């Protein structure tokens, strides 16, 4: 996050939550798209655990590369947001994806995402009001 004098830790938590929600949305839609694939393993992630892990991670340092042979810090910024196989399903069966469960997860995740966006918008509106009317 940028300036910690006006953006406190709450903004970091909210933006990380948006990241996790978007990642989970991609996983669920991937499951739904592969509903008819034989041998597909449905993936999902635990929101709370992933958020805690992502918040505990240090942000990657921006290091200038002084040599072309150095490894770049970019590309490794993807946090441990990999989905795990959700439950012990029979992957050799055709119906390895339960469409009802996936749809319920999709709606729940969508509500979470919209709520987080609304919280961010309201905090930003308060901050903007304090800046605009702050004084003359």
């Amino acid at each position, binding site marked *: 996050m940028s300036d910690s004098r006006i953006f*406190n*830790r*709450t903004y970091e*938590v*909210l933006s990380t*939550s948006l990241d996790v929600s978007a990642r989970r949305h991609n996983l669920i839609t991937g499951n739904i798209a592969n509903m008819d694939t034989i041998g597909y393993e449905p993936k999902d992630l635990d*929101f*709370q655990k992933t*958020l805690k892990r992502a918040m505990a991670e240090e942000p990657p340092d921006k290091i200038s590369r002084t040599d072309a042979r150095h490894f770049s810090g970019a590309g490794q910024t993807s946090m441990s947001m990999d989905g795990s196989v959700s439950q012990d399903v029979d992957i050799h069966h055709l119906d390895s994806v339960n469409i009802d469960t996936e749809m319920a997860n999709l709606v729940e995740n969508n509500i979470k995402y919209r*709520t*987080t966006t*609304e*919280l961010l918008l*309201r*905090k930003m*509106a*308060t901050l903007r*009001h*304090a800046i605009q*009317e*702050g*004084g003359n």
Partner: protein
Amino acid sequence: MNPLSGVDKISLVREPLNLKLTRQDPSFLDRLNAAVKDVNSKQNLGDDAAEKVVTGELGIHEGMLALGEADTSLRLMVQVRSKVMEAYKTIINMQI
């Protein structure tokens, strides 16, 4: 909910003069400090509520309520400050 306070300040009941002279109200500076501290604590409460909504410890409506309270209290404080500055400018430009 908090009980309604401040209504007795606009009542038409006249208190006796000796009570009015011996009454010790908190000073203007103390009231101002308490109000600003109250607004600040409401901001911190709103931040905590937002984080708790994200982590699932608090309902959505409670978080929105806390954020709305913080926003409204800050807007009220800003308006009161504007009024005070306007009154000060009016007084400082008065010709005596």
